[in-house]
């Protein structure tokens, strides 16, 4: 199926190449959806500008473009397990994913205020420094390449993802598996408390 956005993109190319455009050629004079048009719709579940208030929903604001694109492609193929996300991803193209990545990478980091265990946060800080900080930069506030923003994600969401990793339902990169698999259950828990606490 060709959506009107593809047609207008094609027409745009044709116009650029010097073809005449007939009045009836386009069903709509509108331009194809902008990153804002595509990404605003995500906020119903992920919060305005991707700043989530829902405890099991990740914040998308300030993720790297590559991180969003990588996640959406994996949701679409089912490589990353999901409920609604994979079903929705099937309605979008790689270009749409790039537009979402473009939009969310432009949004400000979203600090959350949540209850965490201080002792676990302290222990988690050391674990993070020694194991995670080369890829999840600035205490998880910044992604490197396709690594997601960890800082200030809701603890409940982080725990759900950790459970998916531990069950094997969600696949880890080899670099992450090398580190994560060496951590004890308590260390993993502490690490999540630490990330949830970073503002």
């Amino acid at each position, binding site marked *: 199926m060709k959506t*009107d956005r593809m047609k207008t993109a094609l027409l745009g190319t044709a116009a650029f190449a010097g073809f005449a455009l007939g009045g009836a050629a386009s069903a*709509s004079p509108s331009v194809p*959806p902008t990153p804002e048009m595509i990404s605003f719709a995500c*906020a119903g579940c992920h919060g305005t500008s991707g700043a989530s208030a829902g405890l099991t929903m990740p914040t998308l604001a300030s993720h790297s473009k590559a991180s969003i694109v990588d996640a959406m492609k994996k949701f679409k193929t089912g490589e990353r397990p999901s409920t609604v996300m994979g079903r929705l991803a099937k309605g979008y193209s790689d270009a749409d994913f790039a537009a979402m990545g473009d939009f969310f990478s432009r949004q400000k980091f979203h600090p959350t205020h949540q209850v965490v265990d201080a002792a676990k946060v302290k222990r988690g800080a050391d674990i993070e420094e020694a194991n995670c900080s080369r890829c999840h930069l600035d205490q998880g506030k910044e992604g490197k390449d396709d690594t997601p923003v960890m800082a200030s994600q809701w603890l409940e969401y982080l725990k759900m993802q950790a459970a998916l990793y531990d069950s094997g339902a969600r696949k880890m990169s080899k670099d992450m598996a090398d580190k994560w698999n060496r951590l004890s259950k308590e260390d993993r828990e502490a690490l999540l408390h630490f990330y949830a606490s970073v503002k």
Partner: protein
Amino acid sequence: MTLDRRNFIKLVGGASGLALAGCATQDGRQQTAPAAPAVAKTTELMPKGGARRVVVVGGGYGGTIAAKYVRMLDPSIEVILVEKNKQFVSCPFSNFYIAGLMKDMSALTIGYDKLAANHGVKVVHAEVTQIDAAAKKVVTSAGTLSYDRCIVSPGIDFRSEEIEGYDAKAFEAFPHAYKAGPQSALLRNQLMAMKDGGTVIISMPLVPYRCPPGPYERACLIAHYLKKHKPKSKLILLDANPDVVSKKGLFTKAWNNYYKGNLEYVGGKKVTQVNVAGRSVSVEGIEDFKGDVFNVIPPQRAANVMVKSALVGEDKRWCPVDTVSFESTLAKGVHILGDSTSIPSDGPPMPKSGYSANSQAKFCAINIVNLLNGKPTVQFSGINVCYSAISDTESVSISHVFALVNGKIKVTSSAVSPVDFSLTKVEFTYGESWLRNILTEMST
């Protein structure tokens, strides 16, 4: 006389109880109050200055988002949000309250103060009696508001004339509970007061109506309540449609697996008459159903103010709009979104849902800002996600992605939860997050 914003809102808020001519009460019924005094109709509430102005009518799932996003996209545009009520109560998740799974409606209720504080939306609490597209004015119970563009997200009212005997008394005795608030409380209280061994009857209309899975979710949660607290009782769902119209496989499985003894679904039963004194409803004069508690969900149309403003189409029910900016095809400069609309669609239309309204509001905001700034409009892209609880710990969902195809809105992807119920527990938690996120988005 000069008024700063705070005084202005106080003045307007105080005036909201003025006479209303033939407009909807909160419960959506026609009111026969005397006509508003001429002075209230002609007084310009906030004389328009140099700034471009958008007036948004209706502070629900669509209107709050449209108002906020216009301001986010272009703070030089003045936005006035007109809403009668001081607080908004969400219909999504109100079935939890009705069925005793929420102690009150606080988790469903939001205010408007932060839209004003964070985004500079000017909130006016008054009732809109007419949208005068020719004069580019919104007429309210407290005076008029001129606009450059108007966005209307008014919701639904009921075609109660199609149910014989559905008068003001029946409205209270057999509540619809299909606008959240006092009606939800009426139904809940009747359920709680019912003796064990009683019969609850829900009747629901033909499509299209607001929130396609809503009545089926309600049946699940009320049956859950009966099973737990009044196990000798029974729920009968009378569906005017020949068969379940939303998430059929999921709902029928839930009914069979969890509520077999308490819930009976009957398709093709259109309730055409209610008998409050006799505690019964009639299906097309042929068949009567007796019961103890009745939830009559009448057939629907766009809100009464749309009928009065000649914004309703030839079907006399819904408001036709274009797909460029959801501008009314009957009135220039008036953009309509949410449950009241009829949008040109290729295949199934966008469901009349809160999420659809949210998505439509953003499209509307983007394009109104572009139109006011002389920029080209942007094609539609949108989402719908609806969670329905099937018990106190499990939910199922449906999701859609929409795009513009040949000038019409088309579903490009749609799916429901797996029917093996493997994800119902996790989807229940996602549903809770959905409510929190979408209400936060509407109120901050």
